[in-house]
Structure formats: structure tokens, C-alpha cells
């Protein structure tokens, strides 16, 4: 096997273009995927027209003046606003494709908001206008989702203010005190003080007086109202946010997205180098007509397969270890875990190498083997990256089974566990990769039956 390995390394050394492409291609793909995973999406550019005069941007709730621009800022967390002066200018920007959509705040929005709060005016709700193209459904959905989400935040913030105001009114009703409405100040007695006064009046009446009984009934009603209004804060909070969310993370997601992207990038590089090299180098033996000469007593078929697996695994191991070390210069990696990195990379490389030689044995020609390897590698990776719950349960099960049959998912788990100490650890993934290595070598050995 040693001489065959040296022969293959010599052939690779004399094929610099092939080796260059084989190394550069997966690294470029890995970097692109890593960037796509680790970087938050760009905020969509949206034209923004504010028709509200600067003097009219505030409104009053319960004697407290609030600035509407504070709520507009909620919107700008998800979009990149391009401020324009008129609705027509905004429409033109959307038409030309310079912006994905336009958000228009009409002049009457704060007045209508104030009227809605004061329960006065025509009763028309304040509205914002959103304009966007639907030529690109993905972009349109992104803009719509971003604006809806941020409007939801603004509405929740306003709802919170209104809830506080209602709560204050109810407190005044309960305990008494002063408050302003429509520019007039009121002094309210309050239910608790009313009940006290009623009880005092009832006590001053002669015993057996019919009026005393009536007054005590009114005092009992006041007591009932006091007891129930005590709960008003909780009721109002529930109306403002009927369902609260408590987050509990049971498993997974222990890896930050950026660190996970490193694992994905390394696994993809490992996959491409090993599968392509394994498939190509085995098929090359047949294209060079040397296979028949080798297996007629010089090398056993299993030894030939093992040599190819070791060759491509060693090359991919070297490339991806260097890649990981290079990434370590920019990303904070725990170098103390380097032995685990090597174990994960080696196990993954052997499993991918075994898959590669199986493809080479099945395809039998270098070009067909390379095409098959390319065609299979990307879907395997994409399937393994489909997040749980993103698709229907049945499809998720199918994806789970398919992913378990190929080395990408266990290799990713092993590398993620080795690099990022991700759950559920590296052992299970290494065992899985070992089983796949044996299985794919067995498939390759069967396929060699029709290889010559």
C-alpha cells in the first residue's frame, strides 16, 4: 500500500491545477457559507416619508406627553431608511428598484392617535402606509415581515402606555385623588373613602332606621368594588399582553451562530476534498487500465480501497486542519481542544473518503465519478443543515434518516463538539462515522465486482 500511496501523491504533485482547484473550491464555498450563516442579513433599504409636521410629533396620554418619533425608531431597527420628502418620490424609488419598499407616515397620524386615546374625533384609527414591489416575492416578504414586526413592537409600546394610563384612572377611582381630563382638573373621592363615609353615616343613624340599612347596602357594594378593582392592574396587564413567553432551552443551540459557522465551513471543505479525491483517484485506476494489473495478485481489492481512503482522508485532514488553524487566527477557538479537532477531522475524513471511493467504484470513470460526487455532496450538506421544525414532521423524519446515511451530519456534530464543545458530545458522532466508513468501504468492494 505504501508504494501505491507514494504513487498517488506523486501523481497529485504533478497535477497542480487539479490540486489547486480541489483545495481552493471547497475553501471558497466554505467561506461563503460561513459568512452567510454567521452574518446577520443586511437591513433592507426602505424609503421613509414623514408627513407629520415637526411640531405635531407628540401626543398626550394621561397628562404625559410622548414623542411619536420614539416609536418610529422601532421601525428603523430592521430597515435602512432612505428619507425622502414626498410620497411621489418614495414611489419612484420603489419603482426604480433603489429601495425595496416605502413607509409613509401621514400628517394626521398623531392627531388620530390622540383622538383614539381621548375617545374623541371620528373614531378612525391612525394608519401608516407601506408600498413595495412584488416582483421579487422573497424581498417583498422580507420587507413586509420587517415592517410588521417593528409595527407590532410600536403597537405594544403604545399599548403599554395606555395600560398604565387606564391603571392610573382605576387607582384614582379606587383610592381617590386628582386627575386631568380634557384640560380640566378633578378631585375624586374614591371608593375607599366613599365606603368609609357611608359607614360613618350609617353608624350615626338611629338603630332600626330603614335609611341605615340602605346605606349599609351601598357600603357593601363599595367594598365589593374595592376588592375587585384591586385586581385591575393584573387584568389590564393581561389585556395588553394576553400571552407571555417563558424561554427554556433544553438541548442544542449551545453553540453561537458564528462558532457553528466555523464548524459548517470546515465540514464542507472536508467533504469536498475527500469525496472528490476518493472518487477521482479510484476511477483513475480504471481509466489508466492499471486496475486489472494491480488486483491480479499485486494488491487485494480491499487494500486498494483502503489506500484510496487513507490517501484522500490524509489530504483532506491536512487541508482542513490548516484551515481550522487559519480560522483560529481570527475567531476565538479553544486550542486546548486541538486533539479533539484532530479526532473529529480524521473520523470525518475517513467516512467521507469511504463515500468517495464508493462513488468512484460505482461511477467507474473519473468524469462521471466527479460529477456524481459534486451532485451528491451539496444536497447532503443542505439536507443536514435543515433545522428541526422547519419542515413538516414526516419530511423531517425522512431528512433525518437520509442525513444519517451520509457522513455530513455526524461529521458536523463531531467537529462542532470538538471545536465548540457542543452537545451531545463527540463520542456518538465518532461511532456513527466509524460505522459509515465500514459500510461505504463494503459498498465500494461490492461495486468493484463490475469495475474492471
Amino acid at each position: 500500500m505504501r508504494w501505491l500511496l507514494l504513487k498517488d501523491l506523486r501523481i497529485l504533485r504533478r497535477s497542480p491545477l487539479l490540486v489547486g482547484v480541489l483545495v481552493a473550491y471547497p475553501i471558497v464555498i466554505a467561506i461563503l457559507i460561513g459568512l452567510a450563516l454567521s452574518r446577520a442579513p443586511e437591513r433592507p433599504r426602505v424609503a421613509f416619508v414623514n408627513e407629520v409636521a415637526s411640531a405635531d410629533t407628540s401626543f398626550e396620554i394621561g397628562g404625559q406627553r410622548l414623542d411619536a418619533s420614539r416609536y418610529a425608531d422601532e421601525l428603523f431597527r430592521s430597515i435602512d431608511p432612505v428619507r425622502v420628502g414626498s410620497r411621489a418620490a418614495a414611489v419612484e424609488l420603489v419603482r426604480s428598484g433603489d429601495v425595496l419598499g416605502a413607509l409613509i407616515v401621514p400628517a394626521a397620524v398623531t392627531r388620530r392617535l390622540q383622538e383614539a386615546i381621548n375617545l374623541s374625533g371620528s373614531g378612525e384609527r391612525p394608519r401608516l402606509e407601506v408600498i413595495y414591489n412584488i416582483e421579487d416575492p422573497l424581498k417583498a416578504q422580507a420587507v413586509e415581515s420587517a415592517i410588521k414586526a417593528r409595527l407590532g413592537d410600536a403597537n405594544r409600546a403604545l399599548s403599554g402606555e395606555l395600560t398604565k394610563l387606564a391603571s392610573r384612572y382605576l387607582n384614582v377611582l379606587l383610592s381617590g385623588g386628582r386627575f386631568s381630563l380634557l384640560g380640566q382638573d378633578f378631585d375624586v373621592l374614591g371608593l375607599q373613602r366613599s365606603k368609609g363615609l357611608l359607614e360613618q353615616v350609617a353608624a350615626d343613624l338611629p338603630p332600626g332606621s330603614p335609611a341605615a340599612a340602605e346605606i349599609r347596602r351601598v357600603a357593601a357594594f363599595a367594598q365589593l368594588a374595592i376588592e375587585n378593582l384591586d385586581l385591575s392592574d393584573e387584568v389590564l396587564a393581561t389585556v395588553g399582553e394576553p400571552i407571555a413567553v417563558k424561554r427554556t432551552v433544553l438541548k442544542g443551540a449551545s453553540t453561537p451562530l458564528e462558532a457553528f459557522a466555523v464548524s459548517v465551513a470546515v465540514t464542507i471543505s472536508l467533504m469536498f476534498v475527500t469525496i472528490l479525491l476518493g472518487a477521482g483517484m479510484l476511477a483513475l485506476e480504471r481509466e489508466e487500465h492499471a486496475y486489472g494489473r494491480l488486483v491480479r495478485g499485486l494488491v487485494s481489492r480491499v487494500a486498494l480501497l483502503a489506500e484510496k481512503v487513507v490517501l484522500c482522508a490524509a489530504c483532506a485532514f491536512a487541508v482542513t486542519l490548516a484551515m481550522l488553524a487559519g480560522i483560529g487566527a481570527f475567531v476565538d477557538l479553544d486550542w486546548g481542544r486541538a486533539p479533539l479537532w484532530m479526532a473529529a477531522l480524521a473520523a470525518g475524513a475517513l467516512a467521507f473518503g469511504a463515500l468517495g471511493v464508493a462513488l468512484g467504484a460505482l461511477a467507474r470513470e473519473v468524469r462521471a465519478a466527479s460529477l456524481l460526487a459534486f451532485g451528491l455532496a451539496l444536497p447532503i450538506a443542505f439536507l443536514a443543515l435543515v433545522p428541526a421544525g422547519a419542515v413538516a414532521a414526516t419530511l423531517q423524519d425522512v431528512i433525518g434518516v437520509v442525513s444519517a446515511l451520509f457522513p455530513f451530519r455526524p461529521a458536523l456534530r463531531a467537529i462542532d463538539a470538538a471545536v465548540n464543545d457542543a452537545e451531545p458530545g463527540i463520542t456518538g458522532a465518532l461511532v456513527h462515522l466509524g460505522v459509515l466508513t465500514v459500510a461505504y468501504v463494503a459498498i465500494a468492494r461490492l461495486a468493484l465486482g463490475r469495475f474492471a
Partner: protein
Amino acid sequence: MVAGAPVLMARTLAHRDAGSLPGVSAPATEHAPALAARGLTKRFGRRVALRDVSLEVAPGEVVAVIGPNGAGKTTLLSILAGLQTPNAGAVSRPPREVGWVPQAPAVYGRLSVVENLELFARLEKIPDPGEAVARMLEQAGLVDRAGDELGTLSGGNRQRVNIAVGLLADPPVLLLDEPSASLDPAQRERLWAFLAALSGRGRAVVFSTHNVDEAHRHADRLIVLAAGEILFAGAPRELEELAPDDFEAAVVRFLEQRGR
């Protein structure tokens, strides 16, 4: 390699008497056969490619296997070389004792002539690979091209390397599958001179060819195969009587007489 029980028997026989098999009628030679095969049958599904084929080749003898397309020539040589396993029958020598030269050069285009020879010498576990490589470079007339990559050589020179690899282990028998198919006339003449020299040194040579005249000129004995069966095994002159001035016509007439 010929697998299973027949191989065990073949190996035993090879160690015992250099290649004869019991029950195979030997040609009129004074020496023990260099290679013998008995009752070879090969099926591909329901198609029978070889049917109960037996033969012996004497040391120094040059045997040509001819026949129409699909006759079973390549299948016969592949079984003799140990590339395919017969469904029945046995070969007297294990594959490592038989030199094999496939039709297409089975060497690596990205390696030089000497690197190819060294590689196969190491894989053959030849005790002194350097000496064997130097000897084959000399015999094949490739000393001047030793450092050239195979991919840069002409078809004739590649075929020389192909044959040299087959002879590295100094086997007593050399099998060649259509060795002259891709050569020009001058290269062909050099090939036949080279093989004649080998046979002169006691090597048995078995080759398949479509070129009947070439077989007539260079073979001591012909084996005519058709539909997987040996129809004729003997000296070329025995067929010449059918068409004394045109050997190809004589072979065609022979096949017609046998209904093939």
C-alpha cells in the same frame, strides 16, 4: 486471480511441475508445458463466453489466439492472466507467475517510464527492483526515455513500457491481448522482433489478434476460437491447404466449413 478450489489445485500443480495439468493433451513438445488450462468455462448470465476450453503452451512457443468478434479471445486471456474467474476449469499457474500485457497500456500517464517500472517492480516484490528496472529498460530500448512521462510518449513506446511491466518479474509465460492493435507498421515489426527474442530465450508467448496474417507470420501454433469453443489448434500450415495463397481466406473458409 483464479479463485476457489481450482486455484489451490493450480498453485499446487505449479509448484509441482511448472505448469502441467492432468487430463490436458499436450502438444508435441519435449518439455513440460509453460502454461496449461483445463476445461475452462465462463458464463456471463445466460451467455456462455467459453465452453470447456483446454490448452497447453510449451516453453519458447508462440501461440496466437484468433477468431471472429465475440469468440471469447479476450475472455480466455483474462482467465489465463487471473483477471477473471472461470465458472469451471483451472489454470496451471497463479497470476503472479504469468506476465500480462493488456491491449491498452496499463501504466500511469503522469509517471515517468522508470517510475512506472519501479512502482510495479516494488508491487511485484522483486528482490532487486533496481536491477529488474535497468534490465527492462535495456531490453525494451527505453534507456533514453527513462525519465520521460508516459503521457508524452508515442503509442508504440507506451506499448513497450506496457510489455516491459508485464515482463518485470521475469515470468515464464507472457500473455498479450491484441498487442499490435494501436501500432504503426514499423512499431509492429519492432514488437514482433522483441517477442521473437523473448521466445528465443524460452518464454512462452500467447497473444490474441484480429490480424490473421500477423498470426500466420509470427505464431508457431494457432488456436481458432468461435462462440467460446476451440475449433482448431495446430500449426498454421495445416490451415494453408484450404487456400494456399491467402491465409486469411483459408481461415474464413475454415470457419465457413465449421458453420461459423
